[in-house]
């Protein structure tokens, strides 16, 4: 499906620009689905109100992908890496506001056609405006 060049002009206009903040209430069923998907049976996530640190990956990700695909019609997207910093645990009942930003973008002509290497930075803040986590994700799209 390489006919026609991948148009990333609109994507480029978003470099360095913060995307719309989106807020998500953290509910026990969301956490349960996450821990079950990872296969992490630790009672810590069932009994208390704290969530596993990597749970932030589930907060706002679906919307992020929709937003990204509306900016460039990638045929394939691959994750290159993830970096996370945790400041406070995310707790059940929190409302977490997520903001994404493209922090770097590089394009290359490869055998798959135009390939775009992107870095996304996202911040996660609680309802008290406290920064609970940061994430950096390396994404490859073509």
């Amino acid at each position, binding site marked *: 499906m390489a006919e026609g060049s991948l148009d990333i002009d609109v994507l480029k206009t978003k470099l360095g620009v913060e995307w719309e903040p989106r807020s998500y209430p953290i509910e026990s069923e*969301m956490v349960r*689905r*996450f821990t*079950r*998907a*990872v*296969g*992490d049976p*630790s009672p*810590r996530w069932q009994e208390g109100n704290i969530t*596993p*640190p*990597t749970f932030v*990956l*589930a907060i706002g*990700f*679906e*919307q992020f*992908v929709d937003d990204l695909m509306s900016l460039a019609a990638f045929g*394939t*997207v*691959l*994750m*290159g*890496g*993830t*970096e*996370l*910093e*945790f400041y406070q645990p995310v707790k059940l009942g929190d409302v977490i506001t997520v903001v994404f930003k493209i922090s770097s973008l590089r394009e290359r002509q490869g055998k798959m056609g135009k390939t775009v290497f992107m870095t996304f930075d996202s911040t996660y803040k609680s309802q008290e405006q406290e920064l609970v986590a940061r994430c950096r994700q*390396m994404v490859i799209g073509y």
Partner: protein
Amino acid sequence: MLKQPTTKQLVMWAGAVGDYNPIHYDKDFAQRRGLSGVIVHGQLVGAFLGQLMTDWIGGEGILRKLSCSYKGMNYPGEAITCRGKVTRKYVEDGQHYVDCSLWVENPRGEKTASGMAVVILPFRLPSGDSGG
């Protein structure tokens, strides 16, 4: 820590985080892109390493950083081993920090992911590895 993701698990992960990339559930799509079959989500591998760390540090420890680079494809049905080892212990601002290097091996012994973690423990760690 041994994990053997199944295609069902990939579906569960897709639903849990909202990652509906067809490369993880549509075999035809994956094969058209030169893969032998659907692949495991990189972030799920990252979450495995997160579990490796939280299992190790227990309730009193704090995970401060976790990073993971997805170097190779993991395929469902293959047993993968998540491992870590302590690389540095230090005190900063009165807290006991431990740096760990992490990696994931496929059944052929190839590293499909590597990364690091930084944790804070409530006590000084005696010498030893975190193992796998």
